């Protein structure tokens, strides 16, 4: 089996615990002074890559784990987190603060990186919790013409470059098998990401972090979509209270539900 060269794309997003607010201009959510972290699904991707190496799950071994992020200069913080968790090196593509990349642009960028890094496995989050597009992995598989397994809850390696992936689907799980090279997107049940230990945080500072730009990959930030307006969801209307079961049935009938 070929040695794995894993590419792990990670994204800096507003921390999952922060309640986002729409900005005054209604062009997006307020990001200034808001806590950011690694997209939780990407956290799983990093963890899984490191575990594949540590538990020696791939017969050919793991040759390289490269974390990759496109974002403002602060995206380097989450790359350092990935390095502290066990990635070998990192690539940062700097995007001006406030500029967003659409999934297709990200997929094109990742395709170029895969070629440059000679990656044979890309593990990425099934979606990022900021725009919830959930498209990048699939688009990347299309551009590369590689097999893809989305929403993985289990990844197993066999002989002859075979990879078996258990996928989370509505109502159960689905098991698929493909050969390297391939794309896997991660779901919440795949693993429990670790805390970076202090010694590893310190070691991560010394690991290699390459800085690049979109132009280095021959790309521009081409937009196909235009955001017209972003608004808060309507405030939830409180429900009504009924006295008893008969009252409930009456109400349901009134609403035409029964």
């Amino acid at each position: 089996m070929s040695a794995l060269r894993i590419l792990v794309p990670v994204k800096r997003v507003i921390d999952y615990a922060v309640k986002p607010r729409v900005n005054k201009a209604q062009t997006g959510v307020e990001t200034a002074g808001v806590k950011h972290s690694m997209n939780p699904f990407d956290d799983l991707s990093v963890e899984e890559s490191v575990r594949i190496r540590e538990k020696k799950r791939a017969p050919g071994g793991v040759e390289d784990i490269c974390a990759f992020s496109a974002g403002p200069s602060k995206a380097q913080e989450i790359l350092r987190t990935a390095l502290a968790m066990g990635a070998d090196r990192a690539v940062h593509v700097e995007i001006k603060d406030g500029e967003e990349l659409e999934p297709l642009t990200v997929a094109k960028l990742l395709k170029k990186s895969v070629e440059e890094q000679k990656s044979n496995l890309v593990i990425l989050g099934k979606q990022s919790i900021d725009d919830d597009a959930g498209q990048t992995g699939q688009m990347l598989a299309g551009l590369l013409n590689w097999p893809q397994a989305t929403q993985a809850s289990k990844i197993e390696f066999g002989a002859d470059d075979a990879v078996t992936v258990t996928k989370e689907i509505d109502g159960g799980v689905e098991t698929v098998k493909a050969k390297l090279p391939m794309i896997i997107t991660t779901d919440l049940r795949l693993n429990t990401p670790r805390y970076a230990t202090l010694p590893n945080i310190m070691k991560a500072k010394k690991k290699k972090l390459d800085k690049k730009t979109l132009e280095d990959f021959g790309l521009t930030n081409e937009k196909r979509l235009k955001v017209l307006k972003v608004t808060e969801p309507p405030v939830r209307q409180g429900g009504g209270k009924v006295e008893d079961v008969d009252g409930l049935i009456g109400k349901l009938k009134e609403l035409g539900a029964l």
Partner: protein
Amino acid sequence: MACSVNSRYWPLSRWLTSSYKTTCRAIAIRASHRPFSSTSHNSLMETTGFTETQLTVRQAVSEVCSNFPNTYWREHDQNEQDPKEFHAALARGGWLGIALPENLGGSGLGISEATMMMQTVAESGAGMAGAQSIHANVYATQPLAKFETDEQLRETIPGIISGKWRTCFGVTEPNAGLDTLRLSTMAKREGDEYVISGQKIWTTCGQVASKMILLARTTPYEEAQRPSEGLSLFCIDLDRTQPSLSMRKIKKMGGRAVDANEVFFDNYRTPANTLIGKEGQGFKIVLHGMNAERCLLAGEALGLGYAALTRAASYARERIVFQRPIGMNQGVAHPLADAYMHLEAAKLATYHAARLYDASKTDSSITQKAIGVAANSAKYLAAEAAFVACERAVLAHGGMGYAAEYDVERWFRECLVPRLAPVSREMILNYVGEKALGLPKSY
């Protein structure tokens, strides 16, 4: 524990577009291991001006601490139960070696970062109990790293960093108090051993520690050339099964999760190679770490103060009386605003002292006096600011502040510790009067 942290995951679910049920199940599985931090973005402390490393430490430590919610500390306080899981979690993450050299398995960071770590621990809700459960392991190992022989280092430090051994610090005695040079516990050399007799008091974690860093007299007070040269430092095994060693837990006001003890030695034997540095140099060696400890204590006090104030401010925003939040009343808001300013000022003093301490290793223009004054001032100011914040947090809660469930009473009980230890307010005032103002010594 696992259940209470689950709620922290709710905000995530609102983002998820996929099957809601699947997500919630997965979240429940995951949360028992690794909830994300909820401390840092709630904290009131202004964090601009800190170094990237300090902020990294703050973030990473608060993640570990978020596994130990207030319910954990409340229970351990009420049951006087040692927080051994907490100590183990920090040891697993390599945190106990934060300020120890890299060649010994530490991370080689300074007191500036260790102070931030201790503040973050206290601020997480763990309070002084959490801080004290690891304090000696972080701080009392400093003199070891500096003065032990290579062989001693290999034997002691890795075990302490990994959490295999816990340490306690045996300096204070019932009949010596702050007059350390008068301490009377004797260590008499007999062949390859020292025989220890005497009594220590306020030994934190004595019941759970397997090592004690002990300051004892090797030359009688009257016979010593100078008063500072009759004491020696040891790193001894604490074998509680020996009849020559006994301990008694002291019932105390706060920090009840962590034991404090009276320790009695009656011809307790320890191999001669447990002596650290040279015989007679013990006091000097201990002095070496004192300013560092002042900084750590100041950080712990700050953490406690910010925890209490954060809680009080959120209560004052949410508690409605007379149809409006009580924080709208200036009688409630102003004392809290005042406490905030005192904490912020003490924070600057604390990290200034820590910075001086660290910088003095490479910058010879920084005098020991400057560090001493800065570190003592920081401890004093932070302890007072924490006391003010904790007391007002209780008062802002009204009657509820008296209920254990609101945690502020626990922090209030604990905030007396940094005012009293490791040196009293009055001794700091003496020191500053003498060193900074050039006034004659009064004692």
